């Protein structure tokens, strides 16, 4: 082995590679991990009136240092039918949103990937174009389209398709429209990336072996793009579960989602510990599909090497 001739003090200077890897991790540590630990800490203490509106985890009284974990808020969240309904409601909205996004996004990604390279770039640009405008502004814009005297209703009235305005604004339908609209690009992007790399000779081989176009699509194209389907679906599903803005702006009073409930607990009821416990449970609910996905990706990477 070659002796290490680098001066000792220089060995502590991190290499560019270390910095490149460490930077995002440091960012996540500071702005995700630490705040998350704080939230988790709040979920096991008691609420009180005052600033901050919760008690300390560590208490020093009469020379006794006590560490008290109160899991009552978790029990509350898990047994409260309102929270239960909100979780079910959130999962339902997220699931339906994901399915609709898949039904619209898969054919879109497929045809973009199969069009000629020049058209392909223009179409992908079009998919990403909405990101140039603020998300909030775009969701607000939907009010103008969906409300009773909005663009859509006026247009349909003018066409005499309907006699009276459709009730869309402040309904679950409006929430689904807004969610599908907002999350569709997140599904198309990874799916497109998989489909565009697919070797279309495989489809020719399937036709040559007697598979009709539809059969070849089901037996070759779908399995070959499965990783893109999973990646895109998770990118839609996970943020959809915790979505707050869209149901708040477009949904009605009966749109029950966990994000709204947490907001109410944090800011209206000032019950930070219960809201934090609800957050903890949601993270666990979401970690499960992410873990499954990671596992599948690791497995398929292993298979490829």
């Amino acid at each position, binding site marked *: 082995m070659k002796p290490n001739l680098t001066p000792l003090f220089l060995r502590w200077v991190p290499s560019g590679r270390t910095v490149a890897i460490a930077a995002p991790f440091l960012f996540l540590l500071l702005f995700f991990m630490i705040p998350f630990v704080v939230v988790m800490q709040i979920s096991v203490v008691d609420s009180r009136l005052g600033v901050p509106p919760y008690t300390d985890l560590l208490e020093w009284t009469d020379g006794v240092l006590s560490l008290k974990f109160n899991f009552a808020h978790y029990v509350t969240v898990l047994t409260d039918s309102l929270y239960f309904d909100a979780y079910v409601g959130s999962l339902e909205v997220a699931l339906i949103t994901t399915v609709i996004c898949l039904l619209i996004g898969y054919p879109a990604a497929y045809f973009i990937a199969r069009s000629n390279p020049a058209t392909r770039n223009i179409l992908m640009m079009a998919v990403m174009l909405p990101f140039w405008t603020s998300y909030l502004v775009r969701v607000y814009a939907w009010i103008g389209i969906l409300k009773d005297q909005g663009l859509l209703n006026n247009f349909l009235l003018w066409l005499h398709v309907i006699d009276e305005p459709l009730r869309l604004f402040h309904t679950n339908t409006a929430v689904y429209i807004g969610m599908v609209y907002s999350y569709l690009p997140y599904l198309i992007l990874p799916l497109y990336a998989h489909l565009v790399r697919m070797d279309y000779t*495989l489809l*020719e*081989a*399937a036709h*040559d072996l*007697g*598979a009709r176009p539809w059969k070849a699509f089901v037996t070759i194209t779908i399995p070959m793009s499965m990783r893109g389907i999973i990646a895109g679906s998770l990118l839609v599903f996970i943020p959809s579960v915790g979505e707050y803005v869209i149901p708040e702006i477009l949904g009605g009073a009966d749109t029950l989602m966990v994000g709204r409930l947490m907001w109410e607990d944090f800011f209206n009821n000032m019950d930070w510990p219960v809201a934090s416990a609800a957050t903890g449970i949601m993270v666990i609910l979401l970690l499960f599909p992410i873990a499954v996905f990671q596992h599948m990706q690791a497995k398929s990477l292993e*298979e490829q090497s």
Partner: protein
Amino acid sequence: MINVTPSKIQKPASLKGDPNFIQIIDVVKKFGSATAVDHVSLNVAKNEVFALLGSSGCGKSTLLRMMAGLETPTSGRIVIDGVDLASMPAYHRPVNMMFQSYALFPHMSVEANVAYGLKQEKTPKQEIKERVHAALELVQMQDYAKRAPHQLSGGQQQRVALARSLVKRPKLLLLDEPMSALDKKIRQKTQFELGNILYKVGVTCMMVTHDQEEAMTMADRIAVMSAGKIAQIGTPNDVYEFPNSRFSAEFIGSTNMFEGRLADDDSDLVLCDYLDLPLQTRHPNNLPKDAPLTLSIRPERIRLHFEKTDAESNCTAGVLEQIAYMGSYSLFYVRCPSGKMIEVNVSRQVLGQMERLPNYDDQVWLSWDLDSGVVLAK
């Protein structure tokens, strides 16, 4: 270099059936304004192995893809066993193709890949199992049935692809550049193996290749293609020994070309500007005196001496300018007084019998026999 392979297994003529089993009739394929296949007509006999040979862009792959139904001819007909395939989609044709990249389905095991075609026909499960096993046995891959394609070597993948395209017992098997993805080393061995399997199965086969050696090893007949047209069709021996055009002569093997004109209608004399002595060869009788013509003489047909021969034709003096030692043979490039460079191929054996090894700048004499030259059409 071409060494005509005497060890090639020639199918007995009796095994070959109906000479019109496959008919390609005046097929044209245009991509926009470019013509990829230009009025091609040819027949392939039943159980024959037929090679389309040409450089890239000559239209051979397009022709093959039209046979498979992956491209539609602009005009013309393709008839297999009396049935016109023109309007038949790829998935209904009794034709299977082994793709250049093999196109094995990466998400399926070897077994599932081979079974795929049979499943599309709704073959009973038991029969699928038996036929898949038999097909894998044929290519000696039965022990790899459960593997995924990426776990196999290139040669193994090729055998699976072959099994997959044979398992449906197609009337016509198409091979698209079957050896191009293999290392040069295992290529020759594989050519013989593949040839043996095709012979054993007795399938009619059309293959596309840019490699003349591959075509000559495996095919019963070769069609040399150039710019969308067929330059020549014949057995490997015919195409090599009796090329009909400059293109075939230059494309298959290497050759020496001599431009000349016919000296006398009755004699075998051809006058050539490059050489000191007249060339003498057999030539088609219908040529008039003074007709311009091209003579092709293969390098291995030319002898190299140190002494002047007393022949009155078919010999020339020259200076040895380049030597390439190739192992089993050597190539010598001899400059004639006129400046013409002539390539001579001397086998290791003949070289060993010479009094000394030729060296750079040696004064040498070249000679060849009366029947060594081939007159090419202009």
